[in-house]
C-alpha cells in the first residue's frame, strides 16, 4: 500500500512538473507562433497541453490495466496449478498403456475443464475481467483523444465528427423507412377501395 501511495505521489509530482513547463513554453511561444496562425503549428501549439495531459493520465490507466492483467494471469495460473495437482494424483492410478490412453486424456481434459469453467463462472473472475476490459477502454479513450488533437490540427474529421454523421444517417434511414412503409400502406388502402 505504501509503495502504491509513493508511486501516486511521484506521478502527481511529474504530472505537475510536466504541465507547468508545457504551460510556460506555450505562454513564451504563443505570441511569436501566432504569426503562423494559418498553418498547423499554431493549432498544435494550442493543443499540445491536451496531448501532455492525456499521456500522463494514460499512464495512470496503464497502471490499472497492468494490475488487472496480472490478476487475470494469476487466476489462470493458480487454477492451472490446482488442476494439475489433481491430475497428478489421479493419473498414477491409470495404467499407462494404449488401452488406457483415452482414459488418461479424459481425466486430464475433464479435470482442467471443470476447474477452469468454475473459475470463469466465478464472481472474482467476472469482476476482474470486467475491470480489465474497462481499463483497456480507458486507454483506448486516451488514444482516441490524442488522435483527435492531431486530426483537428490538420482539419481532418475526428471520431466525434464521424459519429455525428453516423447518428444523423441512422435517423434519416429510420425516417425514410417509416415514410416508405406509410406510403406502401396508403397505396394498399387506396387499391382496396
Amino acid at each position, binding site marked *: 500500500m505504501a509503495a502504491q501511495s509513493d508511486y501516486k505521489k511521484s506521478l502527481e509530482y511529474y504530472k505537475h512538473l510536466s504541465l507547468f513547463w508545457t504551460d510556460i513554453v506555450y505562454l513564451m511561444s504563443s505570441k511569436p507562433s501566432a504569426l503562423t496562425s494559418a498553418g498547423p503549428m499554431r493549432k498544435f501549439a494550442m493543443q499540445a497541453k491536451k496531448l501532455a495531459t492525456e499521456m500522463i493520465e494514460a499512464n495512470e490507466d496503464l497502471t490499472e490495466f497492468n494490475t488487472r492483467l496480472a490478476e487475470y494471469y494469476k487466476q489462470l495460473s493458480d487454477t492451472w496449478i490446482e488442476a494439475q495437482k489433481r491430475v497428478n494424483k489421479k493419473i498414477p492410478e491409470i495404467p*499407462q498403456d494404449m488401452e488406457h490412453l483415452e482414459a488418461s486424456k479424459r481425466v486430464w481434459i475433464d479435470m482442467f475443464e471443470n476447474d*477452469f469453467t468454475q473459475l470463469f463462472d466465478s464472481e472474482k473472475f467476472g469482476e476482474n475481467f470486467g475491470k480489465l*476490459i474497462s481499463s483497456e477502454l480507458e486507454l483506448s479513450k486516451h488514444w482516441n483523444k490524442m488522435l483527435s488533437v492531431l486530426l483537428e490540427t490538420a482539419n481532418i474529421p475526428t471520431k466525434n465528427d464521424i*459519429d455525428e454523421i453516423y447518428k444523423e444517417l*441512422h435517423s434519416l434511414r429510420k425516417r425514410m423507412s417509416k415514410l416508405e*412503409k406509410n406510403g406502401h400502406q396508403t397505396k394498399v388502402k387506396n387499391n382496396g377501395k
Partner: protein
Amino acid sequence: MENELKIDPKLVAEFFKFNKNMIEAPKMVPVPDEINLEMTPYDVAYSEDKIRLLHFNSPTQKQHQTPLVIVYALVNRYHILDIQPHKSWVRNLLNQGYDVYMVDWGTPSNIDKYLGFDDYVNGYIDNCVDFVCNEASVSKISMQGYCTGGTLATVYAALHPNKIKNLVATAPVIDGKRDTTVVGNLAKHMDVDNMVETIGNMPPEFMYYVFSVLKPFEQGIEKYINFFRNIDDKNYVDSFLRVEKWLNDTPPIPGELFRQWIKDIYQDSLLIQNKMYVGGKLVSLKNITMPIFTQVAVGDHLVSPECSMPLHYAVGSEDKTLRIYPTGHVGMIASSFSQKNVLPELGEWLKERSNK
C-alpha cells in the same frame, strides 16, 4: 541391464501415427477458406440495408399453408442451419413441406453502430414479415428464432402478435440474470456503456475471446487432437472443417443493439419482468397468445436452460409446449440427433397448427 522405462509399444506407434497425420493433413484435406458453406439453393427474396431475406427452394410440391420465417442469431452466421445436407435444419423442414425463409443479418459496419432493438424488430423483421405475408398471400406467418434470434423473435411476437400464427423459440436468451453460463457471468460484469461509447460495434474478436473460455480444453485442445487422429475419415473431416469455418466467422454486433441486449436482458432482466421498452413500446410477454414451442438443450453451455425456460411460463398462450433435449446448443440444430428427434417433433407440432 533391465530397461526400467516401460512404454507400451502401441503408445509409441500411436504417437508416430499422430505425427504422420499432422504432416500429411495439408495434402489430404481442403483449405478451410475454400470451403463453400452455401448448401441448399435460395433466392434473395428481400433485402434492406445489409440484411437479406433468403427464400429456400423447396424440393417438394406439397406446401403447408403458413410460411416459416427463421430469425437467425446475431452471433456467427445462418450457415449452421444448413451446414451439411444430412444435418440441415432448413432442408429437413423443406422436405417436410414447409415454405422456409431465413433472415441473414449481413455484416454491420461502423455506420450501423446506432442500430438498436427497435431497428431490428420493428424495422427489419417487420418488413421481412410484411414481405412474406404479401408474397404468400397470408395474414400471419410462423416464426422461429434461434439463440439471440429467439429473443428478437420473442420481442417481435410480443409487439406484433397479430402477424404471428406460431412461435418457435429455440434456445432463446430470455432471463439473463438466471443464466448460469460463462457468457452470463462475463455479461453481468461488463461496463457496456463505456464499451459502446469507446469502440462502437461489438468486435468479432471479443466474441472469439468469449467462445474461447466456454470449453477451453474440449474446444481448444481435444477437438483438434481428434481432428488429426481422424484425418482419414472424410465425413469427419468435412463436418469438422465446415463447423470450424462457421465458428470462426462472426459479424460485429451493432453497438446500440449490444448495449440494450446486455443491460436489459443480462444485467437487469427487464424482458422477463415485462419492463423492457423497444421503440417506445413496452414489451409484455403476456401479449404472446399464439401457440408457442420452446426448445431447450440441457447441455447448452451458451444459453443455459434456466435462461430460456422462463419464456414458457411467462407467455399468455394457452397452447404452449416446452421440450428439453439431451444435447447442446449446436447439437439441437445441426446434428443427427436433431434430425432424428428435434425436427420431426417440430414438424409435427407446426403441421397441426399451420393449416388451420
